[in-house]
């Protein structure tokens, strides 16, 4: 899914702060596995599978 996601969907997800929605396996794997894919890179920014997201993005994702 991540490899073939359309641009329209990618923008929609990002603009909505739902970066994690790009990661299909996140809902299917354990909490430990999904947490390990999140890296803090400073200044309230994180990466999830390489995608750079803000703290707010993560917060919104968690609320979904």
């Amino acid at each position, binding site marked *: 899914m991540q*490899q*073939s*996601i*359309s*641009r*329209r969907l*990618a*923008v929609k997800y*990002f*603009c909505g702060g739902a*970066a994690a929605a790009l990661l299909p396996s996140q809902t299917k794997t354990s909490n430990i596995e999904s947490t390990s894919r999140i*890296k803090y*890179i*400073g*200044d309230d*920014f994180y*990466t999830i*599978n*390489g*995608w*750079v*997201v*803000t703290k707010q993005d993560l917060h919104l994702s968690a609320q979904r």
Partner: protein
Amino acid sequence: MLLPFDPTESHTAEYDLCIVGTGPAGITLALELANKGLQILILEAGGLDYTAESQDFYECESVGHEGWPKLTRLRFFGGTSNHWSGRCRPFDASDFNRPSVNSLPGWPIDYSELDKYLAPAMKIIDIDDSGGFKPISTTTFDGHFYPDKSAQSPPTRFKEKYIDEIKNNPNIHCFYNATAVDLGLDSHHISVQSILVRHYNGGQTQFKAKTFILALGGIENPRLLLNCKSQIKEGLGNSHDMVGRCFMEHLNVSLGSFIYKNPDQSSQMQFYTDAQFSNAYDIGQSNVTLSIVKTVKSYGRTRAIKNFFKNLACEMELSEKIDYLSDFKCPGMGNISTLMEQSPNLHSRVMLSAQRDAMGLQRAKFDWQLNDYDRNTIKTIGQQFAKDFQKAGLGNVKLENFVIQASDENTIKFSRHAHHMGTTRMSILPAHGVVDENCKVHGLDNLYIAGSSVFSTGGACNPTMPIIQLCLRMVDHLVKKSTFPVKT
């Protein structure tokens, strides 16, 4: 005068100056100095056109990262300018204010020493003086990145543009098919008296000159110095084992991909690191380029691939280029590439191989290495850029894994820009480099080096412009030092 070298002829006259190499540096120096009345000898190892026989002399033994040392250079009249892309950018003032990198001192000269030669250098490579250096985009990320400013040379092919001037200048004798194989020193080993030149057929003869300049590029300059061991076993200018060390390239790092928030945004953007940012983190400078393939439609890449093959200059890094194109997952998405400064590093170097070329000279052994400083530059710039891109509301970035976490060299996706620098670096002390602030080899009275091999640090600018600026500066130095009448 432009003639094929005939080794059966003897040459007893002493020239004012012998220049080895006919790339942008050699031709600039020759014409400027000949026009001031000096008698110039130019030696070009190759012929007037490309031949496989000549190009074979650029074959290297490569033991480090792949830098394509044979394919990135051209060994015939006009040198590598025969396939130069033409992008120009001068150094920044900040490049000359760095006290040391990896415990090696930075440039021993001030930025103003080069800046005053910018306008005449632009003329030599056909950049409109009024055009200047213009940014292609205007977005600034305060304190970290500003729009990069470059200028485009047509590009100037030095052979096409200057060959007639060389041919018709009465003060120039230019011989091609003439490979310099050794420099003869006086008995005290403090000045060069002659140069031994060999033809492909094995014949050879000596030429004499008052002053010698090597203008052979970042790999051949050290290679020739190291091969000149008939009188000094470690080679010329190498009393501190610095010849060939500190080989630097500009790193083309694929930092990741991006997607613009605005679907109509399709322009290329280029940024340059702010000196405050690079100083604060003690990292190198970098150009960061965002490229987008807007013609990719319905996920079919036929047209892009067709154009790609049409424009393919050579077979270099074919698989990487295909990967680059196939990385585009959807229209509006692009890749982030760089022209990133590599630090001077004693372990990244050009040495002599045990293998010999057809003239009997030892081939270059090419060992391109990155170090922790470079890895930190890649990581810091990549992460900061992604954050700034997002903060500015431009869209989102996906970084490569090696930008996010500690990585060894082998996992970093990078390639070369064909900018070979630093192997005869400029320094005040011979312990830190090979040439002094006038590009004269330490310990030798009359041997000079021209070209990017003298760069103390490489900045993140394409090297041709600073090479020409340094040559014009050398012209002034040689005229000032000259003991014979020169036209002003």
